[in-house]
């Protein structure tokens, strides 16, 4: 049974979503639906080459085309050409090359932008970009990170010797740990490049607003608030004149946590020309233009005693930055650096990451951002160590994980996990999974030499959510803070406006935030309107990413709602003719202690505070509460995911037969939404394990340039999931919640790969490259056979 938070109200209930009526009837406001009279359509001239010097750009052909109003290259754009900003230089000497919206000297990846055309309609703009003549002088392209770092390799940026962006070190003492160890294992894992794959392609509309100086930018973004700041810093448009709106946004997964050059260009040209400018990408454009993620080579060492106690871990990463630094490109792999220890105790932890420039699309955060890579490495290593020691992989985990009575626990990486109960989540997962029967079947198949082998994949993971305590971000050299804001206003009618700084794009914030406020204020969910994603209506916020919205934003809602009650209290006391301290507040009404008949509802007080005819002296009209909360610490959701995997050893085909996910995300506001987040995350992690991977050829041409070549899993590729939760409330977050947006994507990839390797280990297989396509699995089997022969 899933436990849920005991609450008199609606917290913890699987309420159906407020968002759904309009989404299910097609009454939607995607950015591409926005029509502004007189809008020009923007199309971009993208480089077909990975690395080349731009000799000449001839715009005249395009300018002569029907419907074309203007065209620019970097030279003619002049001062309007602004930079995409990176806000996370991770070290003092991180190489931060400029990333201009239009590149003028060289192109550095396929899809880099050389020129733009503006026309009266989208088709004319599209047709005209073919008439822009660019003369390129091809240069050697660097695609592979190891090649990129070899002496004599071509340089993506002259300022970055050996194509090195930065080297980051954390921890130490691994050599001592290894010296004491009975067993040391080393593995190299490749965590391949993937795309976010949001279903709504990106789109931007920028418009000057009438007679004022205001520019409004609608963008399919996760971060309207952050975007306003960085666009202002980059373009010089005063912040107060910029209004950013993220209308209905069709998924993000980190891919819309970005400042994109198309946003800069649309904004600058709309301002310059005094006309609205619209751009929307095709999917194929998205594949080269929206940032990619992951792409690390991980060299991992684990030192342990012969009875399986981990002594130390050494992590050496190469992290592919791509051709430019986007908003948090350098920091993304470092979001994982604290998570390589996972849920395990160890004496020493040593980490080094080298950021490497290559002639590829820039990388940045995608669902989990650094933590999926870390979890993949440690969970794969646990299976490898277990095999080395001849120990059951779950037994090895049990011997090393932090016991539930040991919290709070400071890990070797230096984080203090506040709570957790790995025993409980694992026990529940094992029960749902039927481990004993599956192991018995595995044994039978092995003994009979069945061509279809069965493997059991384990992932006992944790992650850090709730980005983030601002001081910690400062110490890591991230430019901004990690707080979140909420304002709650009582309207004269007694209805409620809840203004949040989070910016949902599928997570159901309107429903969940209403549940929190309803629970505290005693006002029905349907009487609460959640306002978000528009810097004009919701001016303060840090937006939605890193599973932060509930973990941080939820606390702001609670605090703001508590303040509403405190601000209403003196008015209630005045009406009920008693002292403020003599009032109880419950179910949306104040009542006099000991005389519950004497009471007044918040709704009635809202009208009284609006009419203001009879307020106590010194009390201002209207009732509201505002709060900005900086989280005390990260939160640490965890869970145990188990996968039963069938591998056809003759064809390499993999089938996920069953998948059990038991997550502990602390208290749940809406368990239906929590479950949906887990499903989607698990599916995305399985996508990385089995189907997805961005591929370039040696010259830097993108081979997976459309949804026909890049396989986002369909319903036919995935199983149903068995999900449940254990509940260990966070002690550092006022609602006891932890966050759930990324958990599934972090947990499932290693569970799947561990399952495949478990199935094939008797054949000598110890690893399989992702995506574990039939071809990659078959190759792993052949390589093992070859090595064994």
């Amino acid at each position: 049974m899933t436990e849920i938070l005991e609450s008199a109200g609606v917290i913890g209930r699987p309420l159906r979503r407020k968002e759904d009526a309009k989404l299910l009837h097609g009454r939607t406001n995607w950015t591409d639906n926005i029509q502004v009279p007189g809008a020009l359509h923007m199309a971009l001239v993208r480089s077909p080459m990975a690395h080349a010097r731009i000799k000449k750009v001839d715009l005249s052909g395009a300018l002569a085309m029907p419907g074309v109003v203007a065209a620019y290259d970097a030279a003619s754009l002049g001062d309007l050409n602004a930079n995409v900003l990176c806000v996370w230089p991770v070290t003092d000497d991180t190489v931060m090359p400029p990333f201009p919206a239009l590149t003028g000297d060289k192109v550095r990846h396929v899809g880099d932008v050389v020129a733009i055309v503006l026309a009266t309609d989208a088709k004319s703009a599209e047709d005209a970009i073919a008439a822009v003549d660019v003369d390129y002088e091809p240069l050697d392209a660097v695609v592979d990170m190891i090649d990129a770092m070899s002496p004599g390799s071509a340089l993506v940026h002259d300022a970055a010797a050996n194509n090195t962006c930065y080297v980051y070190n954390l921890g130490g003492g691994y050599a001592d740990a290894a010296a004491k160890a009975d067993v040391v294992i080393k593995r190299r894992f490749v965590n391949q490049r993937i795309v976010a794959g949001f279903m709504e392609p990106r789109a931007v509309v920028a418009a000057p607003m009438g007679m004022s100086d205001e520019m409004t930018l609608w963008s399919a973004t996760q971060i309207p608030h952050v975007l306003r700041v960085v666009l202002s810093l980059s373009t010089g448009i005063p912040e107060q004149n910029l209004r950013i709106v993220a209308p209905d946004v069709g998924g993000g997964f980190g891919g819309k946590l970005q400042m994109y050059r198309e946003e800069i260009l649309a904004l600058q040209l709309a301002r310059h020309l005094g006309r609205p400018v619209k751009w929307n990408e095709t999917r194929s454009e998205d594949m080269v233009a929206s940032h990619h993620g992951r792409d690390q080579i991980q060299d991992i060492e684990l030192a342990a005693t012969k009875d399986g106690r981990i002594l130390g871990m050494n992590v050496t990463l190469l992290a592919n930055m791509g051709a430019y630094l986007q908003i948090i490109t350098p920091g993304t792999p470092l979001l994982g650096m604290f998570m390589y220890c996972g849920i395990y105790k160890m004496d020493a932890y040593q980490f080094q990451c080298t950021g490497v420039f290559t002639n590829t699309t820039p990388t940045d955060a995608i669902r989990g951002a650094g933590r999926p890579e870390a979890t993949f490495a440690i969970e794969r290593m646990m299976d490898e160590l277990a095999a080395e020691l001849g120990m059951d992989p779950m037994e090895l985990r049990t011997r090393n994980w932090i016991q539930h009575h040991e919290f709070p626990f400071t890990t070797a990486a230096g984080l203090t996990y506040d709570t957790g109960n790995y025993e409980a989540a694992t026990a529940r997962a094992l029960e749902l999974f039927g481990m004993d029967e599956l192991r018995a079947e595995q044994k039978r198949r092995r003994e009979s030499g069945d061509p279809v082998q069965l493997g059991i994949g384990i992932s006992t993971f944790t992650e850090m959510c709730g980005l983030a305590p601002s001081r910690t971000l400062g110490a890591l050299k991230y430019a901004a803070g990690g707080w979140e804001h909420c304002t709650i206003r009582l309207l004269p009618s007694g209805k409620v406006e809840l203004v949040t700084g989070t910016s949902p794009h599928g997570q159901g914030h309107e429903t969940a935030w209403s549940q929190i406020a309803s629970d505290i204020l005693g006002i029905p969910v349907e009487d609460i309107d959640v306002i978000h994603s528009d810097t004009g209506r919701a001016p303060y916020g840090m937006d939605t990413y890193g599973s932060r919205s509930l973990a941080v934003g939820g606390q702001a809602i609670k605090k703001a709602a508590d303040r509403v009650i405190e601000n209403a209290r003196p008015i209630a006391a005045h009406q009920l003719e008693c002292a403020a301290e003599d009032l109880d507040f419950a179910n949306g009404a104040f009542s006099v202690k000991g005389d519950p008949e004497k009471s007044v509802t918040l709704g009635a007080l809202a009208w009284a505070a609006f009419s203001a005819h009879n307020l106590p002296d010194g009390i201002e009209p209207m009732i509201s509460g505002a709060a900005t909360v900086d989280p005390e610490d990260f939160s640490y959701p965890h869970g145990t995911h188990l996968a039963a995997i069938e591998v056809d050893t003759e064809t390499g085909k993999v089938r996920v037969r069953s998948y059990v996910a038991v997550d502990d995300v602390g208290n749940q506001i809406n368990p239906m939404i929590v479950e949906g987040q887990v499903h989607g995350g698990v599916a995305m992690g399985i996508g990385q394990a089995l189907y997805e991977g961005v591929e370039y050829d040696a010259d830097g041409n993108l081979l997976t340039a459309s949804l026909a070549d890049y396989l986002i899993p369909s319903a036919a590729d995935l199983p149903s999931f068995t999900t449940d939760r254990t509940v260990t409330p966070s002690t550092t977050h006022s609602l006891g919640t932890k966050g759930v947006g990324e958990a599934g994507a972090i947990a499932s990839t290693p569970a799947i790969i561990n399952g495949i390797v478990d199935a094939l280990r008797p054949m000598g297989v110890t690893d399989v490259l992702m995506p574990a396509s039939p071809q990659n699995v078959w190759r792993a089997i052949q390589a093992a056979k070859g090595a064994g022969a």
Partner: protein
Amino acid sequence: MQHINVTVDGTSYEAEVEPRTLLVHWLREGVGKVGTVVGCDTSNCGACTVLLDGRSVKSCSVLAVQADGCEVTTIQGLSTGDDWHPVQTAFKECHGLQCGYCTPGMVMAAVDLLNENPSPSEEEIRDGIHGNLCRCTGYHNIVKSVQYAAELMGGRK
């Protein structure tokens, strides 16, 4: 330019269209049916799925001129006003959508699937909607939604 006469969501439209115009673009730009969306340029995602004479099609892989004389039903015509088609009800009840971008196409594909097969198995559902991609839900609740819709429509007991 070519003349077409298409009934969309119960209303008949006469229009002059360029022969290269895709049905989805005409629906969005010519008729204002922006509830139907575009997710790709290779006919892989299914976000644009509508019913053409009652059968689901990817409206990005049909030319507007091919719909001449036909009846098109989009997500906006599936039910009117505050009415809900059982598939819409089921998607809400079973949390079969998150961001909602795949939803118009997914719902129309499900309507067609249930018309053809009122009582599909899980495998038949997964197979039937494999041309409609969703990045948010992992399909688990979409499958549940289609099963529940079948029940609401009397196909499953």
